[in-house]
């Protein structure tokens, strides 16, 4: 019992605590301190801003301003605001702004500001501000300010800052001249005097260059300090690329564009544009050796393997009868390895085509692009016996020496075994694959088309036909059931149908001039109408009995008289039709039609009288 009570109490407590916790998490305030600029001199004015923002209308209690050691607060103000974010979410924002003047030079830790919200204490971040003496400001320096981060900008030069601009881009190129295809390292730097809100570089337009990325900050920029004249900046690398020129002449570097803003000025985002220094690109010398491909600029080494085996001096590599040879050529070195063209292999006794596949890997260690391209060629030996793949030469231009060089493989001795009998030695993987493959289809070919049965009308017809059959059966059974029921309505429908048939038959007899049949049909029509009206057989009744019955059922005397007269006329005419002409027969037909209508109306009126409440 005690255990159950304890468990229940724990559950209730958990339920009670849970929503509070959720509310607390949802209402964690944004509380931060920003100082602009973070680097300056003793003659500069600094601004500190504390922002407190909650996702409700709750205000902070006991706000405590940050410590500004080394600074004098010359002015401060506060502003608050309540808003409904996106029409749904409440927001409360409070800003405290402080204008600071440094008392002395040094590095100061400002903050944190403190506040309480719903009994919980919160504190802002701390900001390090570096202040230098204005009188002894550092002289302009050409030292790479990013060097300490390990990703320095080769060939760094001090930029000329734009007038009255606290943020700009700078482009640094490592060399003023280069050959076509030689690596040129370009570093784009951002200089800022304030805390960076965001910086989003746009895509580079590499018109006359092929590029390899050397360094690209993934998340945060790594800032360093730099001084230009009397002004202190924070500097970070935005991008660092190895560029390879594709044409000679005075070629401008690609221009880097970036959308940027300082912290708390995100609404004032602006476009920063880097300068575009030009580089003199020299053409390659004219005395290129035969087979030289202009993509080979750098320093290269080549190595050849046969069927994955490196050549051993004095020991030929054995090739099975009619077996394939896989020649692997590895080109490694520094330069734009990824864009090098595959060497063309012309070896007597073999027929090597284009490489069947290739793979490459490159590294950018120490800012130099290097790597290895592996090309795989396949061929079958065209003759047997001892053979040799001679040295394969790859000519390249070495920009360091300014001369063409040649890298070459060592000759590879092969021993192609002769075929014995008709069997094929399937030692190589290519031959095993060839044997396992189903061979090509020969013969005539015709145009085919992709057609899906499920898209055709036949599919829908076959799919819907059973359901339509079922629906048809249901409808048929329903109609049959309705028609087969014995209700006043169905009786009336049947009587009318019968009457229509009688009238059509009478009209036919009239057209044929058959008076006997016509009057017989009219008499039957009147009797059937009466039987339907009084709901009992009347043909066996004598005429007085019929009149009494009709009167008893409520038919008025005038109608009874008309019925009697017409029945008399029919009896007479049936047995003496010769004395009646066509006009009279037509009038009889019309009279009978009117009589039947009157009988039907009377029967309907009498029936409704009976149904009406007494």
């Amino acid at each position, binding site marked *: 019992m005690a255990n159950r009570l304890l468990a229940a109490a724990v559950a209730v407590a958990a339920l009670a605590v849970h929503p509070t916790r959720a509310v607390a998490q949802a209402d964690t305030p944004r509380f931060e301190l920003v100082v602009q600029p973070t680097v300056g001199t003793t003659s500069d004015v600094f601004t500190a801003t504390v922002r407190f923002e909650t996702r409700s209308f709750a205000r902070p209690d006991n706000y405590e301003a940050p410590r500004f050691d080394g600074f004098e607060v010359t002015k401060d103000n506060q502003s608050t605001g309540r808003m409904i974010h996106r029409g749904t979410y409440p927001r409360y924002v409070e800003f405290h702004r402080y204008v600071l003047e440094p008392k002395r030079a040094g590095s100061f830790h400002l903050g944190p500001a403190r506040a309480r919200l719903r009994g919980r204490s919160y504190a802002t971040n701390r900001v390090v501000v570096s202040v230098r003496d204005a009188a002894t400001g550092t002289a302009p320096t050409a030292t790479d300010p990013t060097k300490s981060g390990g990703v320095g900008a080769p060939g760094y030069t001090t930029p000329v800052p734009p007038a009255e601009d606290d943020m700009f881009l700078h482009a640094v190129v490592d060399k003023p001249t280069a050959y076509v295809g030689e690596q040129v390292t370009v570093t784009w730097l951002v200089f800022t005097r304030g805390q960076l809100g965001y910086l989003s570089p746009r895509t580079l337009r590499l018109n006359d260059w092929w590029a390899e990325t050397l360094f690209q900050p993934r998340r945060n920029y790594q800032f360093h300090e730099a001084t230009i004249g009397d002004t202190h900046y924070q500097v970070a690398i935005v991008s660092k690329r190895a560029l390879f020129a594709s044409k000679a002449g005075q070629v401008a570097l690609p221009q880097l564009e970036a959308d940027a803003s300082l912290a708390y000025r995100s609404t004032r985002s602006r476009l920063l544009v880097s300068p575009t220094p030009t580089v003199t690109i020299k053409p390659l010398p004219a005395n290129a050796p035969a087979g030289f491909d202009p993509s080979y600029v750098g320093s290269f080494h080549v190595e050849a393997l046969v069927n994955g085996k490196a050549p051993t001096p004095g020991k030929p590599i054995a090739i099975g009868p009619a077996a394939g040879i896989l020649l692997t050529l590895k080109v490694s070195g520094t330069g734009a390895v990824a864009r090098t063209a595959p060497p063309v292999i012309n070896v007597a006794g073999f027929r090597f085509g284009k490489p069947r596949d290739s793979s490459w890997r490159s590294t950018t260690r120490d800012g130099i692009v290097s790597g290895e391209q592996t090309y795989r060629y396949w061929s079958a030996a065209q003759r047997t016996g001892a053979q040799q793949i001679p040295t394969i030469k790859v000519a390249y231009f070495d920009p360091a020496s300014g001369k063409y060089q040649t890298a070459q493989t060592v000759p590879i001795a092969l021993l192609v075994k002769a075929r014995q009998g008709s069997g094929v030695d399937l030692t190589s993987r290519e031959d095993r694959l060839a044997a396992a*493959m*189903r061979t090509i289809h020969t013969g005539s070919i015709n145009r085919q088309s992709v057609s899906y049965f499920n898209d055709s009308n036949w599919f829908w017809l*076959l799919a819907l036909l059973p359901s339509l059959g079922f629906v048809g059966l249901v409808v048929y059974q329903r109609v049959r059931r309705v028609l087969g029921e014995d209700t006043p309505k169905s009786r009336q429908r049947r009587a009318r149908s019968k009457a229509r048939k009688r009238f059509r038959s009478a009209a036919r007899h009239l057209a044929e001039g058959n008076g006997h049949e016509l009057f017989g049909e009219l008499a039957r029509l009147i009797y059937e109408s009466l039987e339907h009206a009084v709901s009992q057989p009347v043909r066996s009744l004598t005429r007085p009995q019929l009149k009494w019955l009709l009167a008893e059922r409520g038919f008025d005397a005038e109608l009874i008289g008309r019925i009697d007269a017409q029945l008399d006329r029919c009896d007479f005419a049936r047995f003496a039709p010769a004395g009646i002409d066509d006009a009279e027969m037509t009038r009889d037909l019309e009279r009978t039609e009117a009589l039947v209508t009157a009988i039907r109306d009377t029967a309907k009126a009498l029936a409704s009288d009976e149904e009406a409440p007494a």
Partner: protein
Amino acid sequence: MNRIVIAATALLLCAGHAASAGAPHSFTGANRAYGEGRWDDAVAGYESLVAAGLVNRDLYFNLGNAYFRSGHLGPSIYNYERALRLSPSFADAKHNLALARDEVATRWPDRMKSAEKPSTWIRIVTFLSTRTLTVLFLAFNLAFFCGLIFVRLVRRGAFRTSLIVTSVVAGMLTISAAVLLWSNVHYTQKVHYGIVLNDQLHMREGAYEQSGEGALIHAGLRVRVIGRESGWVQIGLANGHAGWVPDKAIGEL
């Protein structure tokens, strides 16, 4: 005059015959090149027929073989897939496609995890061919409604009870077959797939050369074609990765 007319007619007939017989001659020529081990010539011959608009499963199969023998696994797999699209029960193409995929697995063992394995649901719905599922759906549908019709015609008895049970089972099977068929049609006919043709290439984050590099993909990988933009194709892998590649690197099925 008559002679001139007869000669001109004969010339026209000969020219017409030569034009109609052009395709088989090229096909024969490409087959001959294949037989002689001139794989590149065979590829060129078959490709010229494909470029001329000829669509035929044997042509695609032979082209796949020529690419396979010349070591180009991506185009080889692409053409086997094209042959199988025309003729899903093409046993030779299935066999060689399996060999080519084995070769891809041998050549690039460090392929991306789950990039080729479709989700369990896709594997279930594509386990049977569209044609088989269509036949099953129509058969179950017919059995279901025939059962219902007989249930209405037979008034009572054990036979009627067995008819009701049969109809319920057939109805459930009809619904299952319809769902499978719809999903199968969606994944095989409505969703556009492509085959990676290059030996290996990096997907890009955007439709331009300088955008960030994504995952490395290999030849023969079956990818979903999501969109196109000025010479680039946005592709999606089975493991959810997506990126852009040049459109020449993808053969769309």
